[in-house]
Structure formats: structure tokens, C-alpha cells
């Protein structure tokens, strides 16, 4: 090795702490992100379970709740603010700590460097920091639960300042994950949970923004700078394109949330008036008339919405793009066929990413913003359906003419396509400003976004887990348990979220802790109960998945280096990959990523590094040929 050889930029670590806790190895960091997501999703699921219990049986006395939450659920009956705090925390934890960690920071961190033939990410120290910063953010949001839930802790926090009053008995703030001002900026005077819980919520999200930005920086630099010899951009697996675009979205959208969050925190703690207008009268107190409610003038609540949704819309594409990449990858692998329309897929990813920045106003049609901008946002929103449709056609095209092997990973990838269509297609309704008039803030909205974000995205993650588990841990996950997990989940999520569409059509509003007050909601009760039963079953079966993951790590059937007969670089290296990914010899790439079923080739797959197999030129994206 000459002195200019940059291999082993950081030597293999020794010692438990360096190897598994403060590791610089992107593979360990990826697993840490996945573990964080696995923990967060349990919290999020349990919260949604409680929500369903309240909605279906609002006056039922749940003994366990009386025990655990005496203030928030006195006598075992959840009070409305407790429910709303569940709504808020469920959304926040799921969107940030599950959907923005595992797909990108988890699988992306683990596999991007390997798939492009690099030894590690560009900046391993920043990579490690990105995880630990995100972890601290998670601790802060968990703290919000306890500061609001525990009276003593809430009192202690109140000593920090008037906007820090806690102990409301809820599990956090009550403004929804969207935290609209002025409800979110007025402090406890606007409602329980809006004191310390809200402050900690903003701080947690601000910390998360920073962690995310550190990660995005790494992904982009690594992909641009560290691809191995022969790995041109058009020879990258679609997973890499997805991670790259997601990182660009994160890079440009999270700072806007950070800016908005700082402004919100200042409004709450420093008496500024960015989002709080003058002349307010809240809970019997006029703005400026007593110290509990200092004088504010001239702020704009809609400004918060603009800042939040400018981030919030790209965020949902951040949540789904990695799943799309994984699906393309897995569909191709198990159909034993190249991806149909690789170039179109890349353009579609770009188009979704780019257009995603120009449609945020569709969350705000009836917010009071200019109706002219609503028209522009509406037309742009519908056009974002075009690249999504193109991707769907290409997924189906990938399956056409294939020789499909139904592994559990493949089942989830096919499930992704089905659910993405189901969820995405209702965007055509919600994206039209006229139709949003009756539909805004009704249950058709959660039906739509849960199907795409909460289900399709998660199916992408499940598919990725079953697919890459053998490479990460050297053992297969159990296929029989995996099948049960797939079937019950697939049918379960349809049962949960399809009925919500018609609930929305009938006018059922969002974020109601119970539906007992309105006649027009009465006929919907059987559907509400049906959804809850489906949810209970579906949530329960996820514990099979957890068992499968942890049991298989130690007891699963042993796997070789390329158990799926796949083509990309990660299957070319040892299982699990060594510290520097390629044991000192970086791969050289001769082919595109999806060369399956090549006529005349010895096997039905040609790995990217196969040097003596000819793939017909002019067909596909081999780029520079050696």
C-alpha cells in the first residue's frame, strides 16, 4: 500500500463502546437508527391504540388507564386533552422518529456506501453525530410526555418560566403534529399541555432538524464524491437515487422548519409577535392585560402554516421516496428482470422531489391565504400525480414477463405498490381546491396520508428489512412468520384505512376526541368500531415482526453472501460486510444494477462486478463500458 492510499481512513474500532455505541461505522449507525425507529414505532402504535379505544368507546372505564394516567384519564375515561395529546405525539413520533429515521438514516446509512462501492460515508464523525443528535431529540420528546404527565416534574419545569408550566396530565402538547399558531404559541392559557409540553416539542423538533441536516450532508457528499470505479450515476441502484433525492429534500426543507420553530419558541418565551396577532382574548384574559398573557400585536398565524408546510410537504416525500427505491430494487430482484424504465424512474424521483417543493399550499386552501395562490397550488399538486403514476406503471412493467419469487420481502414490495396506489389516488380529490372545501380536516385526509405514509412507507421498510436482514446479520428472518405478518398486516391496513374515506365523505371531522355530539356522525359509529377492531388486530401482529427480527438475529437460518441471487454491490461482499465494507479491495463496476435475465449469460443474473459477461450494448444504461 503506497502512502497515498486512503484505505482505512479510520482503523477498525476496538472495545464495546467504540464498536457499538459511539461508532463511526456507517453500518452500526444504520442499525442504531433502525433500533431507534423500532422503539419509536412501538410508542406511536400504543398511542394510536389508545386513540382508537377512546373514539370507539368514549365513555368506557378502562381500569389500566385509571392506574397509569389518573389525571389524564380520571376514572379510566380519557379526557379530551389527553386524547389530543395522543394525536399530537403519535403524529410527531411517527413522522419524525420513525419515517424520517429508518428509511433514510437506517437503511440508507447502512447500504448507500456499500451500493456505490465506498468504504464508509464521506464524514464518519458527522454521521455518528447525526444519530446521537437525533437520539437526544427523541429523549426530549419522551421528556415532554413525562413533564406533562407527572405533576411533580411539571411543577419543577414551571420554575424555568411561565411558558414551561407542565403537569397537565396529558402526554404532551395538544396542537397536533402541525402545531398551528396561535394555539401553539400562546402557552398554557390556550389549553392544557400547551405549556412545557409544547416547549419541549419545539425543542425536540429543532434538535431533530439538526440531526437530519448532518445526515443529509453526508449522503449527498458521499454519493457525489465516493462512487467506485465504473459506478456512474446511471449505474446506481434506484435505492441510491431515492436516498440522494431524499437527502436533497431534507437539506432544503428542514432548515425552514428550524427557522419556523425558532420563531415559535421566541413567541412563546420572549414575547415576540411573529405568529400572534393583537387584540386576542383567550380564556377570559385580554392580550396585554396581565402577566399570564403579555401584549402581542401584528403577528400572522398563516405565516406559521407557510413555514411549516414548506417543510411539511417535502417531508412526506422524504418519508416515501426511500420506500419507493427499495420497492423498485426488490421487485426487480425477485421478478428476475431489470427495472422497467430505469431512466424514467430516475426522472420520476427527481420530478417528485422538485415538484414537492411547490405544492405546500394544498394544505392551506381554506386557511385564509390568497385564493389565487390556491389555484396555482392546486394545479401543481395534481401534476405531481404524474410522476407517481409513471412509477406505478413501471413497477407493474417490472413484474410483467418476470419469473416472480414470492419471498416475504417481495410480498411486502408488491404490497407497497398496491397500497401506494390506494393512498395516492385520493390525492386527486384532496388536491383540487373546490373539492377540498368539503374534505379539508375530515377523515378522508388521514385516510389518504396514512395509506401512503403510514402504510406504504412502512411496507417499504418491512420489505427492506426482510430483504437485507441476511446481509446485515448473516441469517434469514423466518419466512413462515414473515408470511403471517404480511397477510394480516396487508388485509388489516386496508380494513383500517379504507372505511375512513367514507367517514370523511360523510363529514367526520379530524381531531375530535369523540363523535357523540353530532347527529350527522351517528350512523358512522359501526365503522368506527370496525376500524378499531382491525387496528387492534393489526397492531398485535406487529409483535410477530419484532419477535422475528430479534429471534432471527441469533437463531435464524444461516445465509451466504448472496442468498437472493441479486446483482448489486452489497451482495458481492462478505456477510456481514467487514469494517471497511470490501476487505481492502474496492469493487470495479462493469454493468448496470439490474441485469437479470440477460440472454446468453450463464446465470439469470449478472452482478455489477461480473467482468467476463457481456450485456448487449445499446440496451439499458451501461454508460461507460470497459
Amino acid at each position, binding site marked *: 500500500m503506497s502512502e497515498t492510499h486512503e484505505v482505512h481512513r479510520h482503523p477498525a474500532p476496538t472495545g464495546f463502546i467504540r464498536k457499538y455505541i459511539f461508532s463511526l461505522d456507517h453500518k452500526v449507525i444504520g442499525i442504531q437508527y433502525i433500533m431507534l425507529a423500532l422503539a419509536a414505532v412501538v410508542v406511536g402504535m400504543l398511542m394510536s391504540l389508545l386513540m382508537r379505544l377512546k373514539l370507539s368507546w368514549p365513555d368506557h372505564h378502562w381500569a389500566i388507564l385509571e392506574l397509569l394516567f389518573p389525571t389524564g384519564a380520571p376514572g379510566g375515561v380519557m379526557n379530551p386533552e389527553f386524547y389530543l395529546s395522543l394525536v399530537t405525539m403519535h403524529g410527531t413520533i411517527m413522522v419524525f422518529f420513525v419515517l424520517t429515521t429508518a428509511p433514510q438514516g437506517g437503511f440508507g446509512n447502512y447500504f448507500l456506501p456499500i451500493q456505490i462501492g465506498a468504504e464508509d460515508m464521506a464524514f464518519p464523525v458527522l454521521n455518528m453525530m447525526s444519530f446521537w443528535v437525533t437520539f437526544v431529540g427523541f429523549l426530549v420528546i419522551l421528556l415532554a410526555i413525562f413533564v406533562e404527565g407527572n405533576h411533580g416534574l411539571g411543577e419543577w419545569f414551571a420554575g424555568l418560566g411561565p411558558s414551561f408550566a407542565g403537569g397537565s396530565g396529558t402526554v404532551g402538547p395538544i396542537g397536533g403534529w402541525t402545531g398551528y399558531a396561535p394555539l401553539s404559541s400562546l402557552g398554557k392559557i390556550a389549553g392544557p399541555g400547551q405549556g412545557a409540553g409544547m416547549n419541549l416539542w419545539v425543542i425536540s423538533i429543532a434538535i431533530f432538524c439538526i440531526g437530519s441536516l448532518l445526515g443529509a450532508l453526508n449522503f449527498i457528499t458521499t454519493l457525489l464524491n465516493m462512487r467506485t470505479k465504473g459506478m456512474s450515476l446511471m449505474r446506481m441502484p434506484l435505492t441510491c437515487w431515492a436516498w440522494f433525492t431524499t437527502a436533497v429534500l431534507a437539506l432544503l426543507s428542514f432548515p425552514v422548519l428550524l427557522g419556523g420553530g425558532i420563531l415559535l419558541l421566541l413567541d412563546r418565551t420572549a414575547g415576540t409577535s411573529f405568529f400572534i396577532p393583537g387584540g386576542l*382574548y383567550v380564556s377570559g384574559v385580554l392580550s396585554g392585560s396581565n402577566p399570564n398573557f403579555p401584549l402581542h400585536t401584528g403577528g400572522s398565524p398563516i405565516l406559521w402554516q407557510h413555514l411549516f408546510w414548506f417543510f411539511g410537504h417535502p417531508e412526506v416525500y422524504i418519508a416515501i421516496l426511500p420506500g419507493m427505491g427499495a420497492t423498485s430494487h426488490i421487485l426487480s430482484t425477485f421478478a428476475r428482470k431489470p427495472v422497467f424504465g430505469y431512466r424514467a424512474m430516475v426522472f420520476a424521483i427527481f420530478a417528485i422531489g422538485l415538484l414537492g417543493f411547490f405544492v405546500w399550499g394544498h394544505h392551506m386552501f381554506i*386557511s385564509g391565504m390568497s*385564493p389565487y395562490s390556491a389555484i396555482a397550488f392546486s394545479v401543481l399538486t395534481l401534476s405531481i400525480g404524474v410522476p407517481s403514476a409513471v412509477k406505478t406503471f413501471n413497477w407493474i412493467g417490472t413484474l410483467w414477463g*418476470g419469473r*416472480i419469487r414470492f419471498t416475504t420481502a417481495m410480498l411486502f414490495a408488491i404490497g407497497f405498490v398496491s397500497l401506494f396506489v390506494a393512498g395516492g389516488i385520493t390525492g386527486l380529490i384532496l388536491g383540487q381546491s373546490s373539492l377540498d372545501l*368539503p374534505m379539508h380536516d375530515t377523515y378522508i385526509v388521514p385516510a389518504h396520508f396514512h395509506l401512503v405514509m403510514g402504510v406504504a412507507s412502512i411496507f417499504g421498510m418491512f420489505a427492506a428489512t426482510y430483504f437485507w436482514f441476511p446481509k446485515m446479520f448473516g441469517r434469514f428472518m423466518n419466512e413462515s412468520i414473515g408470511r403471517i405478518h404480511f397477510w394480516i398486516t396487508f388485509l388489516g391496513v386496508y380494513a383500517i384505512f379504507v372505511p375512513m374515506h367514507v367517514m370523511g*365523505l360523510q363529514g367526520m*371531522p379530524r381531531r375530535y376526541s369523540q363523535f357523540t355530539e353530532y347527529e350527522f356522525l351517528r*350512523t358512522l359509529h359501526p365503522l368506527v368500531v370496525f376500524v378499531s377492531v382491525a387496528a387492534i388486530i393489526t397492531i398485535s401482529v406487529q409483535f410477530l415482526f419484532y419477535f422475528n427480527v430479534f429471534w432471527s438475529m441469533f437463531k435464524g437460518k444461516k445465509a451466504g453472501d448472496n442468498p437472493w441471487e441479486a446483482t448489486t454491490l452489497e451482495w458481492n461482499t462478505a456477510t456481514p460486510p467487514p469494517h471497511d465494507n470490501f476487505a481492502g479491495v474496492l469493487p470495479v463496476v462493469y454493468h448496470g444494477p439490474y441485469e437479470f435475465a440477460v440472454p446468453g449469460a450463464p446465470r439469470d443474473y449478472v452482478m455489477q462486478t461480473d467482468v467476463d459477461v457481456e450485456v448487449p450494448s445499446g440496451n439499458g444504461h451501461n454508460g461507460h463500458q470497459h
Partner: protein
Amino acid sequence: MGRVLAVMIWIVTLLSVLLFLSGKWWLPAAISDHAPALDRQFLITIIVVGISFTAAQIGLGWMVWKYRDTGKANDRAIYSHGSNRLEVLWTVITAVVFIALGVMGQSVWASLRLHDAPPGSYTVEVVAQQFQWNFHYAGKDGKFGRTDPSLIDDGSLNFIGLDSADPNAADDAVTAALAIPVNRPVELRLRSKDVIHNFWVPQLRFKQDLVPGMEIKVHFTANKVGKYELACAELCGQLHFKMKSYMLVLPEDELNALQALPQDQFQARMGELLNKYQLPTYQ
């Protein structure tokens, strides 16, 4: 497994479509002038949605059934990287359909939002707060009394800060329910005292946020007499689920008679009317 998967995808698709087609839970019967156009646009959209959804799921299931690996040795998949022609074709078709839908969907919006309320509209000021609705009527003189936040006193029931010193306020009335005339354009001036709320009557096919610090003017025309539930549709705090009121659509003469009453009699008469009219029946 492939056949089972295909069948389950199709069953799920069928059940979903049936749920929609059954019409058991659907948009409530509409009572506004813009509703027929809106409902027509919705129908066109839901048809496109339904066809796309069904076609995609059928296609997905078909591929999964037909191209499952049947274990024949030396049987490879078709080596195809795609088809530029197909890409162009389905991109163009999708773009045309989606953008056409988008453009068509603007006309109802434009009719409601890009124009002010026509002259001669019946105007009501709406002031929302945690957790009740306040409707301010101009009374016989058709002029609204001055309001000022510093005059608000929930304790003494001056919810909107009406300035009793203003002569225009003398014949004004403030109640918790909304009464509007049938078949006459109505303008609502929407304000909020504390946080964002939203005015929502499902049968009206209409909702709008009430934003503190702004006065937002909207208009519509109701065309069926009756009593309708009014709900808040923007999270405003813990009693958001209970921020309920009613909208009464009255014949012109009944509304004029109501309008002419002073505050105390107005309240009482409202109560009578709320008892007189019934909510629509829901199946």
C-alpha cells in the same frame, strides 16, 4: 402464492369499491347553490379515481398471477429495460387527465373565492372563540355596531366586545346560532378571538378557517329551509369536538321578522325556531 396474492388484491379492491358504491356513507344531501357543480366535479373525480385504482390493482394482480415462477428450469424472464414509447404515452395520458381534472376543479373555487359577495347579500359577523360560536346580526338598520377587543367580557356575556355606546349597536343582536335567509346570497365576515377555528356545515359543501387577526369574508347561497349542524373543523383546543352550533335557513319573511327583534327577544325567538325546525334525517 402468486395466485393467492392476486386474488386477495382483487378481493380487497372489490370490497373497497363496493364500500363506496353502496352509498351507505356518502356526501350528505346538499343545500347550497354551488353544490351541484361541486358534486358533479366530485363525481367525475371519483370515477377517475375509481377507474385508476381498480385498473392498477387488477393489473398488479394480473402480473403477479401470470408471471409467477412456476419452477420450469432454464426459463428466464423477458430481458427488457423498458420502452420509451410507452413511457411517453402513459406520461402524456396521465398528465392530460390529471391536469384537466385540476383545471376543471377550479371553477367552483373561483366562483366562490375570487369574487366578493354580490350586492344585496345578507351579512352576518361570525366571531369564534374557544369553544363557542358568536353570531352578530346588524339588526333593522343593517349596520353593525362597533366592536373592540378591550370591551370583551365573557363574564357579562359581551362575547364580541360590542360597544353599547355606538348607536348602530342598539338594534344589533348576538347569539350562538346562525340564521340566514333561503335563496339569497349570504356574506359571512369571519373573525376569531383566540385561535384558529373553522366554520363547517357539511350540507353546505363549504368550510373556511377563522383566523385571529384577520377578517375573512366569504359568501354562499343556501337553497333549502331547515336546521343544520355546524361544527368546528380546525383543532382549537380540548373542547374542539364540542364546539357545536346550528345553522337555520329560514324563509325570507321569518328571517325579516327575526331580524327586527331586539337582543333579548331575538334570543328567545331563535330558541323557538331551533325547536321548530328539525335536522335532516340520516339513514
